[in-house]
């Protein structure tokens, strides 16, 4: 079985986000970029599935310009077998990304697609569900445990009410949550090895996919700031202050 793993290049989660003064987006110049943390977890899970003998090949996929090859190389260094960059100069929206993924799924005959439950830039949480819909296959979103047996996957999902379990037939799309695993660290020799692993570049047009019904993002603004408050000295003052404000 082949597993496709989506990898998005995003601003590193430790970076303090600044909105550009002209409102056109957020500052990315000279800012550290990384693999979306959820995608790293998706890749780690795919690698573990392969290492357990339940998959033959793990393919990392990213959609974007050449700069996302950096994140694909990191994915290869973690242990993916090969990489595909779907080349697109403009930033693609989830529906188009899901359509492009579907083309790759068909081309590769993938048995499983693992994606992050959301990317920490757009916080959309859409691509996995959209791909599953277009593919007419199961979606198991927000996974915190995945158990494969034969042609089925038992997935524990982190939902608002607790932990939900569903069983899905493969092929399927799984979107992963943070508690699923802890991604491995990349070692230097692996980085060297990754340089020799295959990285295929496919222009998005060659997949026969073009953006449609796109949303427009007309302006970006910083969020309202919360004013710095007061400090109290002890529990008694805290309780008194809360009572004064009518909160207790």
């Amino acid at each position, binding site marked *: 079985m082949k597993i496709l793993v989506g990898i998005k290049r995003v*601003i590193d989660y430790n970076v*303090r*986000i600044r*909105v550009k003064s002209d409102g056109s987006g*957020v500052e990315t110049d000279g800012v550290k970029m990384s693999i979306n943390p959820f995608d790293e977890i998706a890749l780690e899970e795919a690698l573990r599935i392969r290492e357990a003998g339940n998959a033959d090949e793990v393919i990392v996929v990213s959609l974007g310009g050449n700069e996302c090859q950096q994140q694909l190389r990191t994915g290869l260094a973690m242990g993916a077998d090969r990489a595909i960059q779907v080349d697109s100069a403009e930033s693609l929206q*989830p529906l188009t990304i*899901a359509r492009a993924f579907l083309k790759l799924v068909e081309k590769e005959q993938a048995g499983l697609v693992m994606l992050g439950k959301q990317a*920490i830039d*757009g*916080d959309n949480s*859409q*691509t996995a*569900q*959209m791909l*599953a*819909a*277009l593919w007419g296959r*199961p*979606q198991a*979103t*927000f996974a915190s445990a995945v158990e494969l047996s034969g042609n089925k996957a*038992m997935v524990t*999902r*982190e*939902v*608002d*009410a*607790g*932990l*939900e*379990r*569903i*069983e*899905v*037939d493969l092929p399927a799309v799984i979107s992963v949550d*943070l*508690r699923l695993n802890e991604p491995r660290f990349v070692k230097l020799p692996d980085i060297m090895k990754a340089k020799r692993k295959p990285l295929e570049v496919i222009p998005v047009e060659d997949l026969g996919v073009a953006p449609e*019904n796109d*949303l*427009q*993002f*007309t*302006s*970006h*603004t*910083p*969020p309202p700031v*919360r004013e*710095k*408050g*007061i*400090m109290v000295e*002890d*529990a*008694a003052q805290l*309780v008194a*202050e*809360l009572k004064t404000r009518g*909160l*207790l």
Partner: protein
Amino acid sequence: MSNILIIAEHDGQNLNPSTAKCAQCATAIGLPFDIAVLGSSIADVAGQAATIAGTGTVYAVDAAHLGDPLAANHAQEVVAMASGYSHILGPSTTFGRDLMPRIAALLGVNQVTDISAVEGSHHFKRPIYAGNAVVDVVAPEAVTVVATVRVASWKAVDGSGSAAIESRPAAEAAVTHSRYIDLQSGGGERPDLQTASRVISGGRAMGSKENFDLIYSLADLIGAGTGASRAAVDAGFCPNDMQVGQTGKIIAPDLYIAFGISGAIQHVTGIKDAGTIVAVNKDADAPIFEIADIGLAADLFNVIPEMKQLLG
């Protein structure tokens, strides 16, 4: 026809308050709205939906296989009833986040996620980057708007109504590729985290599952819901459904008290809309004090017992 369809969230017995919040958002958009209740034996829930002020018609789609919360089954039903609606809204809870993109893809549209404000029928605001930026989103007018409503940004609609209820059978057969197994609920009897007016949270500093009893006992004294940081959940001190933040729950209680939470952006984004934020942290330089309305630099293991005594 220019109308809004709201997808109700419920657990089979009770309508989730997120539905009345979606109704508030629909009211802001300013078009008539209907509510779809999908499930099995849902007469009660449909009755509750019918009391939401401003509702046109409640469509109760009742079938055994809709009793399980499988997005694949629910999405195809919504698509079957979508024609004629200009907007389809669902909540930004895990229920809506699972379901709505599947609907959007089947309709061939992109989804507007986490609407926090309405600027026009096709113009919305929403937070991105864990709430560190707000973006204006304009959706194309020629196609259906499929959107999730950021529930922490909206109050439930006031007043009550008595909308007509129309029952209908499922339009589609159940999918066979997915099976619901069970739900293990972490929650006890405390107020629901997403709707509680007071929330008490603990972080990594709580140190153990046993020590979290301090959080629970203080919460019970003031009728609060309980939350946690990701670090506390990861460490196994408390169940996952207590996690507050970018990847947990986004909440807006009147009062939020954080004990031993450092204030990472991923946590803070979950409480930005709270009325009053209180932080107790023994490190006077902890970032949470930058956003706290009331701060106390002290050891939580002294502060909580003292508060309990003062409030007990």
